[in-house]
C-alpha cells in the first residue's frame, strides 16, 4: 500500500468527523481494555512472565544469526525450504516463484501483517493469481478494498451494518440472499463462501507468530481456525515471517504465547494455536506436500544494530493500540500505513522513511500507557522521542515549530530576560482577560481555543511576588 503517513493530520481530522468510524472505535476500545485487565488480574505471575518473555527476546536478538540458521537447518531437515528476502520485492518474488512452480491459480491466505508490509496480495494479483483472505476481518477489508486498521482486528473500524451491506453486495452472485442481521449470521455466510475457496486453493499462505529454532516449526494463533485450513488443505504451504519472529525453543514460545493472548484479546490462550513443522509425512492424514518459509528482513537488521533495537521485541499483540488515546480517537487508517498506533509510529518511519512518516512519532502525548501495557516492556515513548531527535537533527521539523522552540529557548536560557518577558506576558494577558479569568479566543492560540477556553494568568508572576515578599 502507498503510505499516507505524511498526511496524518488530514487523515486524523477526517476520522474525527466520521460518525460511523467513531461509533465503531468507541465500541471496540472498552472491550479490549477490560478483557486484558481481567485476564492479567487473574494471573498473579504476569509480571514475572513478562520479565521472562522479555529476557527470551533479548537473548534471541543478541544471537539472531545463530537462531535463524538453526531454524533454517531444522526446516530443511524436516523436508521444507527457507527463502531469505532482504526487501519486500525479494519476498514477493520468492512467493510468486513458488506459486508458479506449483501451477497455482487460487491462493488462500491467512492473516499476516508482514504480508501487508510486503503487499503480497497486490503482487499475486498483478501476476494473475486469485487471492482470498480467509480471516473474517481480513476478508471484510479485502472485499471493501481497504487496508487493515488494527494489527489483530483488521476490520475493527467497521460497524455490523457496513459489513452486512458489503456482504449483500458481493454474495448475491453465489446465490446467498438471506438478509443478515446478527453476527453469527455474518460469520456463517462468510464461512460458506470461504469453505469452497479452502477446498479449491492450490497454495495456502499464512503468517507466523513465532518460529521455533529447535524444531523448525512455525506457530500461528487464530480464533477462527482459518489459518489451519489455509495451511493444511492446499498442496503448498508458504509461511511469511519476519526475522525477529524466531525464538530458541518450544518452551520459549509457550511463555510468549501466554503473554500474547492475554495482552491481545484477554484470552488465556487463543482458540487455535498451531505448530507447523515441515510438509506432510508418509503417514500423516493431511497437510501440504510442500512447506516453504519466506524470511523477511525489510530493515530489521538495521534496527538490530541501532537505537530502535528494542522494537524488535514486539510480538504484535496490539495492546499499545488498544490503550493509546490517539489511536482510540482517530483509528488505524489515519496512520497511513500497515502498522498503526504507538508500535506503528515507531515502525513506519523506519520502513517508509522519516520524511514520509514524520507526523507519526509526534502524534503522541507520550503519556506512557503503551509502554505500561506492552507485554515486552518496549519503551515506546523513548523510541518515539528518538524519532523526534532524528527529525530535529535532520531539519525535518516544520519551520514554525523550530522557530517557536528557538524563541522560547532564547529566553529560557537568560533568566533575567526571561523574568522580564514573563512579567510582561503575565501582566498583559491578566489585564486582557479583564477579570473574566479566561479567554474564549486569542489570535495566537486559536488551535487551543477552538475547543476550549484558555485560562488567563493570575497577573503577577510567582518570581516577582516571591522577591517582593522576601525583601519586606
Amino acid at each position, binding site marked *: 500500500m502507498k503510505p499516507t503517513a505524511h498526511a496524518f493530520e488530514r487523515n486524523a481530522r477526517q476520522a474525527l468527523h466520521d460518525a460511523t468510524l467513531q461509533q465503531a472505535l468507541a465500541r471496540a476500545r472498552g472491550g479490549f481494555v477490560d478483557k486484558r485487565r481481567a485476564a492479567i488480574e487473574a494471573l498473579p505471575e504476569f509480571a514475572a512472565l513478562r520479565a521472562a518473555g522479555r529476557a527470551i527476546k533479548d537473548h534471541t536478538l543478541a544471537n539472531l544469526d545463530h537462531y535463524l540458521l538453526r531454524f533454517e537447518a531444522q526446516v530443511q531437515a524436516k523436508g521444507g525450504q527457507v527463502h531469505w528476502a532482504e526487501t519486500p520485492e525479494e519476498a514477493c518474488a520468492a512467493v510468486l516463484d513458488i506459486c508458479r512452480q506449483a501451477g497455482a491459480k487460487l491462493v488462500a491466505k491467512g492473516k499476516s501483517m508482514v504480508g501487508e508490509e510486503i503487499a503480497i496480495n497486490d503482487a499475486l494479483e498483478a501476476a494473475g493469481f486469485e487471492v482470498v483472505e480467509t480471516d473474517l476481518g481480513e476478508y471484510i477489508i479485502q472485499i471493501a478494498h481497504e487496508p487493515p486498521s488494527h494489527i489483530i482486528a483488521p476490520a475493527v473500524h467497521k460497524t455490523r451494518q457496513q459489513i452486512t451491506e458489503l456482504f449483500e453486495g458481493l454474495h448475491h452472485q453465489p446465490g446467498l440472499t438471506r438478509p443478515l442481521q446478527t453476527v453469527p449470521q455474518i460469520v456463517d455466510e462468510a464461512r460458506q463462501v470461504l469453505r469452497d475457496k479452502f477446498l479449491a486453493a492450490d497454495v495456502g499462505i499464512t503468517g507466523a507468530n513465532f518460529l521455533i529454532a529447535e524444531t523448525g516449526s512455525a506457530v500461528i494463533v487464530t480464533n477462527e481456525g482459518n489459518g489451519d485450513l489455509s495451511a493444511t488443505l492446499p498442496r503448498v504451504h508458504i509461511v511469511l515471517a519476519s526475522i525477529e519472529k524466531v525464538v530458541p525453543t518450544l518452551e520459549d514460545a509457550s511463555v510468549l504465547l501466554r503473554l500474547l493472548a492475554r495482552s491481545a484479546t484477554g484470552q488465556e490462550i487463543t482458540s487455535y494455536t498451531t505448530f507447523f513443522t515441515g510438509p506432510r509425512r508418509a503417514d500423516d492424514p493431511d497437510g501440504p506436500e510442500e512447506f516453504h518459509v519466506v524470511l523477511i528482513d525489510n530493515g530489521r537488521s538495521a534496527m538490530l544494530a541501532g537505537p530502535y533495537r528494542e522494537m524488535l521485541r514486539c510480538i504484535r499483540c496490539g495492546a499499545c493500540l488498544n490503550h493509546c488515546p490517539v489511536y482510540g480517537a482517530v483509528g488505524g487508517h489515519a496512520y497511513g500505513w500497515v502498522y498503526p498506533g504507538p508500535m506503528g509510529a515507531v515502525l513506519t518511519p523506519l520502513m517508509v522513511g522519516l520524511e514520509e512518516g514524520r507526523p507519526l512519532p509526534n502524534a503522541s502525548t507520550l503519556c*506512557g500507557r503503551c509502554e505500561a501495557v506492552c507485554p515486552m516492556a518496549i519503551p515506546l515513548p523513548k523510541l518515539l522521542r528518538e524519532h523526534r*531527535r*532524528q527529525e530535529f537533527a535532520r531539519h525535518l521539523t516544520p519551520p514554525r515549530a523550530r522557530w517557536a*522552540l528557538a524563541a522560547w529557548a532564547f529566553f529560557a536560557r537568560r*533568566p533575567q530576560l526571561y523574568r522580564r518577558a514573563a512579567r510582561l506576558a503575565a501582566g498583559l494577558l491578566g489585564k486582557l482577560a479583564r*477579570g473574566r*479569568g479566561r479567554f474564549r479566543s486569542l489570535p495566537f492560540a486559536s488551535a487551543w481555543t477552538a475547543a476550549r477556553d484558555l*485560562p488567563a*494568568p493570575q497577573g503577577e508572576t510567582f518570581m516577582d511576588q516571591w522577591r517582593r515578599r522576601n525583601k519586606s
Partner: protein
Amino acid sequence: MRVALFVTCLVDLMRPSVGFAAVKLLEGLGAEVVVPPEQTCCGQPAYNSGDLATARDLARPLVDALAGFEHVVVPSGSCAGMLVKHYPELFEHEPEWHAKAITLARRTRELSAFLAEHGARLAASHAGRVAMHDSCSARRELNVLAEPRALLAQVDGLERVEIKEAETCCGFGGTFCVKYPDISARMVADKAAAVIASGADTLVSGDLGCLLNIAGRLKRMESSVRVYHLAELLAGMTEVPGIGEAGR
C-alpha cells in the same frame, strides 16, 4: 530542613498561587523554603521535540542551581519526572553531568510525594466532592498515586470521587495540544465529560498543564465544576478564583 522549590514555568507565569500554596505546605513541615532565582524552565518542550542540545543547555544551569540542596520539591509530576527520569538520560554520555543529574534525581520529589514522605499534618477543610486527576507523568513516570489521595483524606469535610477511565491522558501533552489540536480537543472533551459524570464539584491535580486543559474545556462547556491545583486545596487556599474563573 532546607528545601529548594522548583516552581515550574507554568506556575510562575499562569498561577503563582500554586507556588505559594506549595511554600505554605512545605513551611508547615517546618522547612525553610528557598526558590533559586536561576530557574526558568526544566527544558521538557525541547526534550520532547527532539532538540536535545537545547534541553541540555537548559538543564545544566538548573542542575547547578539545585545542587546545594538536600531536598528539591516540584509542584508538578511532569516537571519532576523530567528532573528525575529524563535528566539522567539526557546526560548518559557525559559522565560528570550524568553523576550530577543522578544526585539531583535522587533528591527530587513531586510535591505530594514529598509531603506524604515527611508525614505532613494538614489543617485544611473543604466541603464538597473532589475528583483527583493524576497526570500521566505522576502516574507512570513517578508512580505517585496513593500520596495525593492520602493527603486529600486529611482534608476536613471532603468526599473523594474517582473519575472513569482515569488512566487515559487528558490530551494536553505539552506541545501535543498545539501540534494536533483536533485530537487533543477530542481527548479533553472525553476527560471533561468523565469529570462531570463523576459527580465531583471540584477537580484537583498535581499538574497545572492538565488542569489548564481540562478547566478550559469545562469552562467552555459552562460546567460548574471548580478546578484547583492539589496544593491550593491542601493548603486551604481555595479563596482565590479557581482556574479559568472570574475574580470575585
